[in-house]
């Protein structure tokens, strides 16, 4: 037991401290407030504000789309709507989707992009790839939280004369809220941190994207580019970016805890 605890906590501390030690020292205010300059990857000045903005512009809409689709799927998976042999089949499909490596989603989005005659990457197809990536994560999380809503609670709602829609919207949704919130933030966390799915679809840019068809930089992809450079100072920039990404993910995790707690106030046990 102690060994497993040591492995888990030890590797967490190791990863975080390497990133913080290397990242925090090379991070400067300039890097957070300026966009990249021409040869950012070669060690010249400028910052990566464009990548922070780019990442948010990819992950936020993707999470919103994935959430809307996921909640609909998850509500529909319940036994009031379809027989369980169908829903368990759909659940297996979702689990397989969850297991698909994100690069495959990237290649898939790229294939569609090329078929449409678009080249060089765009925010739009990055969002598309991330949405696909997040759907199984959010759906399964929301689904699990809806599945455990007590049968008696649903019966209560139905016997008040609510329709299936009213029951899902007003009663089941409230009871499942902590799981739904957790699902959204889990999906967002995965979306903002994933490099492979956007590697082939968003391209790169030194500026803020101004339309959905523009290319953009994103945090995971610039980490990849920076870390692959031979110069030590440039590699350290990768740590700085990783540090920022880590902070974003950490704040999401804190937000999750806060909102889960807040939304469980009315839960019936």
């Amino acid at each position, binding site marked *: 037991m102690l060994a497993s605890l040591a492995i888990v906590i030890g590797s967490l501390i190791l990863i975080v401290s390497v990133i913080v030690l290397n990242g925090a020292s090379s991070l400067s205010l300039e890097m957070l407030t300026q966009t990249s300059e021409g040869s950012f990857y070669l060690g010249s000045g400028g910052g990566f504000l464009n990548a922070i903005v780019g990442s948010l512009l990819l992950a936020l809409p993707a999470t919103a789309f994935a959430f809307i689709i996921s909640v609909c799927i998850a509500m529909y998976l319940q*036994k009031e709507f379809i027989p369980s042999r169908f829903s368990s089949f759909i659940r297996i499909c979702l689990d397989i989707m969850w297991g698909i490596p994100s690069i495959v989603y990237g290649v898939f989005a790229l294939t569609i992009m090329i078929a449409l005659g678009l080249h060089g990457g765009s925010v739009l197809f990055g969002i598309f790839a991330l949405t696909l990536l997040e759907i199984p994560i959010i759906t399964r999380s929301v689904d699990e939280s809806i599945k455990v809503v007590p049968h008696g609670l649903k*019966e*209560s709602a139905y*016997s*008040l*004369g609510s329709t299936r829609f*009213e029951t899902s919207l007003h009663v089941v949704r*409230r009871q499942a809220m902590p799981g739904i919130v957790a699902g959204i933030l889990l999906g967002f966390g995965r979306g903002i941190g994933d490099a492979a799915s956007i590697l082939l679809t968003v391209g790169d840019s030194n500026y803020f994207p101004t339309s959905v068809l523009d290319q953009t930089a994103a945090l995971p992809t610039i980490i990849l580019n920076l870390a692959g450079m031979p110069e030590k100072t440039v590699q350290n920039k990768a740590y700085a970016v990783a540090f920022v990404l880590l902070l974003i993910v950490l704040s999401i995790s804190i937000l999750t805890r806060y909102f889960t707690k807040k939304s469980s*106030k009315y839960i019936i*046990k």
Partner: protein
Amino acid sequence: MSKSAIQIETRGLNVSFHNSPVLKDINIEIPAKQLTAIIGPSGCGKTTLLKSFNRLLEIQEDVKISGEIIVDGKDIMTSGLNVPDIRKKMGLISQKPYPLPMSIFENVAYGLRIHHGKNPKKVEEGVHHCLQEVGLWNEVKDRLHDPASRLSVGQQQRLCLARAIAVKPEVILCDEPTSALDPIAAQQIERLLLKLKKDFTVILVTHTLRQAKRVADYVIFLYFGMVVEHGLADQVFNDPKSPEMKAYLSGEIS
């Protein structure tokens, strides 16, 4: 029993779960504005019978129901009927109270809003009236917006009753409503049911014979999915006809 006073009638009602029969050929009449107790040993189909009256069995899988259930002269099993409208006529109080995951106020307001309009003033009056009716108003008037889950179990059960009558049903279906409660809370519920039968038809599933004896006007005795005996409470309790009912009354089977 005069014909106009029948609230629910079943004709040849059969229910099976996963192909095993739970209720077999049930033919009963339930009088309006009276308290009917459904009694019988555990697992004999009491709850199933109760939940067939508002078509609540259908939300489970693999249920087969056949026969007629006539409410207000109409067979509610006819296909194409709007099921929420059928359920609206019958409030349900379950064994373990399940308040909705909302505030105390919203629990009662929910049914009012979905069926009787959203006018805030009317909703507020309705909530007040229903909570008064179940004797909960004075206990909760200062914390109407607290989560309903913070109430005691007995209070939650009365809240469920208030929530049910807010919809203005004709029938109140009670599935062993006192079995999870302490004796004082249980007595409160019993008294409420006796009070409510003036305005509603009350159907009470109970496995305590003493409770049935205290409150019932009319009794239905189920045994292994069949109605063995039914009739006025006095008659069933004092002059049982069937050997099963006699055995149940004497405590040989429970």
